[in-house]
């Protein structure tokens, strides 16, 4: 396999293309507690559901309309006329700390990492191979990102601010740019923090992706809850309302799908497949990939052949072969003793395994068994 498969550099598209608003949007609310009922009229930006974890942002309505259906996973909104607009929140006027975090939380932004720290790291590397959204945002949406950065700086009050990027050509106001070799898995949060601070467990350091800064800049400018996401699809970059069905996005972008193809959200390496083309895009999704049916040989339930490829490729210096075997036989505590918690879930062990074992699935399974509650948080790309 050629090594440039993992390069994080690629040609950028001319600009970010807007996907038109669909008639019906499906907001993913799995794990949330509902605030509205079926049939309710909702306004754009209105709170729909709250997550049991206080640091996870609210789920808000991306469009005005009527709640047409509601189940454990999706809340569907049929777009309708705008009523009285939701009162915008002026984030600038809020005091950093509890008050600002509450404001961001109400606008749908997760605030788990918004706290005072000495070093602020901005992850400007494209997150995964074939995904170009980070550099596209840095080039085309620098204003929104700077806006978000100004608010984050106010909240975090860092002494030092570093932008990690694949080339030195990107700049952010008040940040020094540090070039990180643009090769996967260097874009993963722990790897970026290590590259910038030189430490694997950096003290008083927080990291944000440019995607997150863009979200914060977006809500700061509009005063309205986050209702859009930007993502890479098939080499181009698009902006769509949260909840836009994937089939509408694919139709708009003229991307064909065939039976047996897989729809992978948030990157080919660490992302997840969805089973329904009507799945509404979520707010932290940064890429949509259509993986053709025969692109990779299917994973199989085969025993480990002990070749050691996963050990040699693991960026966390683990023994994924042992961890996966422990997970396979339900010995989760033993898996933890092997360093399971240090796993970054980069997906390289699954990629390289010549026995086609579902390594990442075994590891995710063990993690989920050991920490059942953490599986519910809608996590994005870095932080």
């Amino acid at each position, binding site marked *: *396999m050629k090594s440039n498969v993992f390069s994080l550099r690629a040609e950028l598209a001319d600009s970010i293309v807007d996907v038109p608003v669909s008639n019906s949007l499906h907001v993913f609310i799995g794990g949330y507690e509902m605030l509205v009922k079926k049939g309710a009229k909702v306004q754009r930006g209105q709170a729909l559901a709250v997550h049991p974890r206080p640091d996870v942002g609210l789920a808000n309505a991306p469009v005005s309309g009527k709640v047409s259906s509601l189940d454990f996973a999706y809340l569907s909104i049929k777009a309708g006329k705008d009523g009285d607009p939701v009162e915008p929140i002026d984030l600038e006027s809020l005091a950093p700390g509890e008050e600002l975090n509450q404001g961001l939380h109400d606008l749908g932004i997760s605030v788990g990492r918004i706290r005072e720290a000495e070093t602020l790291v901005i992850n400007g590397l494209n997150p995964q191979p074939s995904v170009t959204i980070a550099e596209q945002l840095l080039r085309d949406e620098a204003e929104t990102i700077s806006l978000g950065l100004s608010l984050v700086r106010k909240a975090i009050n860092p002494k030092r601010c570093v932008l990690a990027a694949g080339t030195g050509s990107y700049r952010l106001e008040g940040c020094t740019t540090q070039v990180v070799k643009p090769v996967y898995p260097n874009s993963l949060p*722990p790897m970026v923090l290590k590259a910038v601070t030189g430490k*694997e*467990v950096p003290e008083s350091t927080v990291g944000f992706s440019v995607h997150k800064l863009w979200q914060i800049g977006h809500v700061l400018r509009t005063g309205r809850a986050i209702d859009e996401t930007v993502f890479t699809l098939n080499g181009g970059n698009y902006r769509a309302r949260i909840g836009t069905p994937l089939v509408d996005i694919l139709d708009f972008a003229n991307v064909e799908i065939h039976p047996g193809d897989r729809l992978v959200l948030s990157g080919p390496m660490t992302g997840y497949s969805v089973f329904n083309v009507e799945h509404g895009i979520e707010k932290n999704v940064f890429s949509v990939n259509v993986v053709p049916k025969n692109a990779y040989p299917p994973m199989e339930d085969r*025993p*480990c*052949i*002990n*070749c*050691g490829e*996963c*050990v*040699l490729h693991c*960026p*966390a*210096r*683990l*023994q994924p*072969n042992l961890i996966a075997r422990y997970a396979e036989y339900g010995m989760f505590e033993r898996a933890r*003793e092997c*360093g399971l918690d*240090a796993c*970054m879930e980069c997906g390289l062990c699954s990629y390289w395994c010549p*026995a086609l074992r579902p390594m990442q699935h075994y590891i995710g399974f063990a993690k989920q068994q050991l920490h059942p509650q953490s599986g519910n948080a809608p996590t994005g790309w870095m932080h």
Partner: protein
Amino acid sequence: MAGMACASAVACEALVCRIRRQPLSIENWNAFYIGLIFAMLLPAGAPWWLAIAGGAVTVLLGQALFGGLGSNPFSAPALGWAVCLVCWPQFMDVDMALASLPINEPLTQLKYFGVGSLWQFDTMQLFLGNQVGAAGASQAAALVLGGVWLMSRGVLRPFIPLAFLVGVAVTAGIHWSIDPTQYASPWFHLSTGSVMLCAFFLAPESGPSPCGRLPMILFGLLAGAMVAVIRIYGVYPDGAPFAVLLANLLTPLLDRIRPRPFGVLRRNHA
């Protein structure tokens, strides 16, 4: 002969799959491969039944008994070779099997007649395969070519083969530099017997070798050093497969060498 060993190995694999009611695993070519490697360790004049018996032992005792590909604690062809050597020494003795030839087996000459008898060999000719030896193992140059091709294709990791060769060369070299009249040169050791076959095909076998860079390198060095030690101090003229088997015993220990996981402080790491 190689064909008979492979046929026997594949037939045994199919039989085991049938008995275990598992899907047939012969299409992954593993049984064929280990049968072939075993055959390459046999002397050229070995009787046909030895090839069949050895191929069966290689698959059944070497691999199937322990759960198949990747679960075997010992290199399967080396185990098949060792069983045959202990059971039928008269047929496994390369020198005896080919005694009718006008040239001699270099390692036996070294063992029983000392370094003084080695004037009859040209190391370059030995390396190119112009020597008496096991059917495939004596073709050093061809085996190196195959190993380098596998490494360039990324099929074979270079850590174990290179460390193995370094282990042989360094251990033999130390003895040689102490007394060249008593010990053969490292070049002689590298180009005779089954060193190249062991370096590129037996030692890196995935199941019985450790994972991880440092364990792999240590494994190769130890196995390589054992080759020279067995040849110099042991009773067998060529101990290369035995050296691999001995190093296989150390694999569980070498697999205990684990780096500190990312982000885990040293004092907290068990």
